[in-house]
């Protein structure tokens, strides 16, 4: 099946990496891959953890209807083997030669006209992020631009000129050379996929599986119980970058289409484990408004484009943004192995600090979010140092089922207050059956300290966490 190589398009050139002869690992980041060549050094490393966007590039990916979907990613969090069958667009690919002259892409020209670069180091990443927005044909407003560029830090400009450049250029969309070349790219990518759908790459004591089907993935998992499963890899890649932890065997399920389902199912919504946060966000706008606020402040646009709900759940992080939210929705998780499938509640799924209940032969297939009944209110609030591109200091996702004015049932799921996302059971018990008003809430706030003893860390003090957690209850009724 595999011949230990991957094929992709870099800007407009078909490239192949043969892991038998190259110096790269399958998990070499695309950033390091690009920077090893003199003609693609426009991409910059600013932090190697997806927190600055200087390494942003754009991926062109085949869609079901034979066109290309363009989206921005942090190349520092992207494994080389994972780009098989995709188009990688870097800053070098944006300009084009017309006779003897170089013509800049409208996005590049807009940034120049608005004085959107000062030191220039973040600029290639900024250009790529605006380019992805430009290619989404979205005619964005200010808020859309902010959402799309919140993953690109700039320390010089104060952003105002960048914001204005993006707004202007995206309100005046012109066909570009990517449109002209799109059919050709589609043809090449289809050809690559047809010849080699899955990848098994082996190099430098590392095996990288990039299967196409769930069946393949489960077989790999079954026969390699210790394989590290990645689905977006935004967490795993950081550890490699920072601690030089090279994982021996990686199972990347980001190409498995069976885990990308996103549909209404019975009395709820089924979300495949491989659904990206950005795709879920778009879906939630129309279908699950109660999860939208959390998705809008989830990491950055680049990370939302690749990070998946399955990945976020599997990390079982105490400050994972979605786990308390899923707990409040009484969501259930579908776990599958080669021979069986089972369902568990989200809270059963999390078993400890960064631990989950997956058996060694299992993968998360999807998550079922039941529809919210009319007598149920769900609210969530994330408190972080910064609004965008930050992890929760404290978060609360609450579900309150009312019977008349009284609380019939309640879930108060907190993030950042313990070693795992955790319900405030004592506070819940106190509120049970009581009228949900200011007076009861104020009394309930006193119970929070019975439920939690938070810690002080780089993000905040224990005192702040406790006060904020109490106040989040008050916010349930004050808007």
């Amino acid at each position, binding site marked *: 099946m595999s011949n230990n190589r991957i094929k992709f398009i870099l800007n407009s050139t078909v490239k192949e990496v043969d892991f038998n002869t190259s110096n790269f690992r399958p998990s070499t980041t695309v950033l390091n891959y690009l920077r090893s060549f003199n003609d693609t050094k426009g991409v910059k490393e600013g932090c190697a953890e997806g927190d600055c966007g200087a390494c942003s590039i754009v991926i062109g990916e085949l869609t079901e209807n034979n066109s290309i979907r363009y989206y921005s990613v942090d190349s520092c969090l992207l494994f080389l083997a994972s780009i098989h069958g995709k188009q990688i667009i870097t800053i070098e690919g944006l300009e084009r030669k017309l006779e003897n002259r170089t013509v800049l892409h409208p996005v590049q020209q807009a940034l120049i006209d608005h*004085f959107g670069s000062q*030191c220039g180091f973040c600029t290639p990443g900024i250009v790529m992020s605006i380019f992805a927005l430009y290619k989404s044909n979205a005619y964005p407003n200010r808020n859309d631009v902010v959402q799309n*560029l919140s993953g690109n830090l700039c*320390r010089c400009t104060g952003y105002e000129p960048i914001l204005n450049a993006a707004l202007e250029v995206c309100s005046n969309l012109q066909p570009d050379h990517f449109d002209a070349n799109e059919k050709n790219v589609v043809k090449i990518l289809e050809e690559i996929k047809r010849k080699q759908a899955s990848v098994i790459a082996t190099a430098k004591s590392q095996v990288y599986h990039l299967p196409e089907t769930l069946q393949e993935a489960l077989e790999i998992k079954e026969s390699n119980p210790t394989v590290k499963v990645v689905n977006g890899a935004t967490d795993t890649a950081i550890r490699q970058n920072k601690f030089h932890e090279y994982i021996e065997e990686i199972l990347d399920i980001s190409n498995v289409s069976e885990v990308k389902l996103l549909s209404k199912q019975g009395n709820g919504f089924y979300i495949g484990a491989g659904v990206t946060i950005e795709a879920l966000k778009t879906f939630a706008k129309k279908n699950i408004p109660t999860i939208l606020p959390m998705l809008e402040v989830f990491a950055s646009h680049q990370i939302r484009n690749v990070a998946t709900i399955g990945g976020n759940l599997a990390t079982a992080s105490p400050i994972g943004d979605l786990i308390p939210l899923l707990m409040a929705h009484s969501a259930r998780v579908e776990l599958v192995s080669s021979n069986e499938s089972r369902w568990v509640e989200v809270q059963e799924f999390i078993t400890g600090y960064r631990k989950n209940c997956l058996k060694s032969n299992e993968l998360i297939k999807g998550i079922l979010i039941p529809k919210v009944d009319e007598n149920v209110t769900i609210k969530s609030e994330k408190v972080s140092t*910064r*609004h965008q591109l930050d992890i929760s200091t404290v978060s609360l996702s609450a579900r309150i089922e009312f019977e008349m004015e009284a609380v019939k049932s309640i879930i108060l799921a907190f993030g950042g207050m313990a070693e795992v996302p955790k319900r405030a059971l004592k506070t819940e018990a106190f509120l049970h059956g009581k009228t949900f008003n200011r007076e009861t809430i104020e009394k309930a706030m006193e119970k929070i300290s019975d439920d939690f003893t938070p810690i002080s860390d780089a993000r905040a003090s224990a005192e*702040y966490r406790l006060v904020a957690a109490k106040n989040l209850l008050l*916010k349930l009724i*004050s808007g």
Partner: protein
Amino acid sequence: MNKSPNHESAIQHVTGKAVYVSDINLSSDMLVGRIVYSPHAKAKIVSYDLKAALSVKGVVDILDYKRIPGVNQLNPHKNDEPCLAQGEVNCIGQAVFLIAAKTEEAAFEAEKKISILYEPLPAILSIEDAMEKGTTIAPPRCIERGKPFEVITTAKHVLEGEVKTGAQEHWYLETQAALCVPGEGKEIKVYASSQNPTETQEVVADVLGLNANEVECEVKRMGGAFGGKESQGSHFAAWAALLANATRKAVLIVLNRDDDQKITGKRHRSLSKYKIGFNGKGEITAFIVDINLDAGMATDLSIAILERALFHAENSYYIPNISITGTAWKTNLPSNTAYRGFGGPQGMAVIENAIDRIARFLKIDAAEVRHRNFYGIDSRNQTPYGQTVEYNKLYTIWDKIIAKSSYFERRKLVDEFNTSSEFIKRGLALTPVKFGISFTTSFLNQAGALVLIYKDGTLLVNHGGTEMGQGLNTKMLQIAALELGVPLSKVKVNATNTSKVPNTSPTAASSGTDLNGMAVKNATDKLRARLLPCAKKMIASKYSFEPMGEIHFENGEIFEANNRKKSITFEALVAQAHFDQISLHATGYYATPGIHFDRNLGKGEPFNYFAFGMAVSEVEVDTLTGYSRFLRTDIIHDVGDSINEKIDIGQVSGAFIQGLGWCTTETIRWAKDGRILNYSPDTYKIPTIDDIPLEFNIELLTDAPNPKAIRKSKAVGEPPFMLAFSPWLAIKDAISAVGNHKFEPTFNLPANNELILLSAEEIRSKMKNKKKK
């Protein structure tokens, strides 16, 4: 001519072709350098063994202090910063060994194999601790006028307090980097990311035991610096140079982000105590302030930074009786260093917060109190150190910004909003800035240039300043083009290089354009004077008339003022001049005249002039979570006659947002053992595009030519940083609204969501207690 030509590197920036140190394309046998640093805040080095590490495949050499051929010193002025630790370490992050390896992975492996035994010692990790133990880096400094201690006892009202300001990480997008290439014999070439090529050259020469003429330092551009590469950029060059010298191969050091945040210096934390006396109108009669800075483990630039803090303790206000004292304390943290504002922000924060208190105390609007205390135009215009505040723009700007921002109308709207909203509160604040321009170390106010005209009529400008994004090269290009009357397209600015312009001052103190612009002009003046007789001769012979009037050089043409059409081209003139054996290159030099300061007396005229600006900001605070968002900021800032308006506006917005970060989300915490906790962007939060004011209006003050600087312009790099006190105090105003402005909120800097929430909670509990009583 276009008032705002684009940044000269704009095309390179947006196409990814701009070259930074880590992009330089050299031979494939270039090595990577890695710095092995101390994990202890203070410790004795008992013993170490490098054998196992040296045997790692791909490792070429590992150096300790014994392998330094020259002096083991990074600070040639103060001699208190060893290049590599010898016997002891004094902060986490102090360099101990240097590894040269073929790959980063090999270097990383080798580091793990170094065995070293430390004996940890008690460390000093806070200003308070240093004050208790008395560990200063230099004797305290003082500026005094009038009888502050006497007047404070008789003042109608006196408020007393303390203000803490936090450390700030520079977070330049390009981390510290240096590439050193050994040349013939002992020669070495340094490609640095440094604001200070000359000092880099000197430090490299010192550690290698070379003469200055054997070391060449080049700086093409930096990916941001903000002061962080003024003194400390040279350290990385010294380390790369030692490895390059030992291996005789090119060595590149590029810090990863975490290491950069862990081992480099920050903006100095400060702890200031004050007493302020005032009358019923809010007029300040006496101010006594004691400023304490956390210098870290070595002197670095702390003395000059402290000095600037002292010079700005009164900001824009005339205070008849004033005592400003300051001390820089030695602690076991990486040596703190220059950062945009250079102590000014720490100095100003105190008076701005104190005036805010006065306003709350007297129930007078704070903008009004500020206005009442502004420096006068003809009287009340002497600074505490005896310099007259000339060309005072404070009143002009105040009038304009009050109108532009509808300050008083919005004050009412904010108050109305707050009465009807229990937990979401809004705040509004106006703050001014008056910032002294010049290096306060007077001799540094000098610059050089070398302008070359080639036979084809194109210009190559060399100057001593460095480009870090601020647009200095664009302005130098504009100045040279204007002075010699050639189109911008004919001028190029060269990478800054110590072999072209020697003995330069750092590009710092906002002075880059003032100093280097004058030096460039001095060179172009010489060239113009040399070309003039030749031009006259050519016009005379071409048009058969004797040009008696003034000769103009404009847009590539040379002509007599009254005979515009009878012109010759610049190219023809240059070609002729070469035939006539006229030298077509000239050096330029400039030293700012008339500035001086006596550090012992605390008196003098340290500044060439002052820059002024003002901001009005409105903020909305969620007092249940501490989250703040900025609704609107209006800025009017004085840059004299702008050389490049768009670049200047970019400096204002960039500085303001950087200041906003310092005042709000950028928080650094340390563990009890001195480890920095916020060492990556994961937990250290600079502003994103989402954090800028929803409405952000920046205007440059018009009709305000500055007679003291090049082309009547003004320096702009640092002053607008301090305009961020307006959102800072707007936050305080919003917190204060929780208690209907009856209680003084606990307030420091940064006003992060933790401070906001806990301060609001404190007021809420005070109110509850009051009700109970």
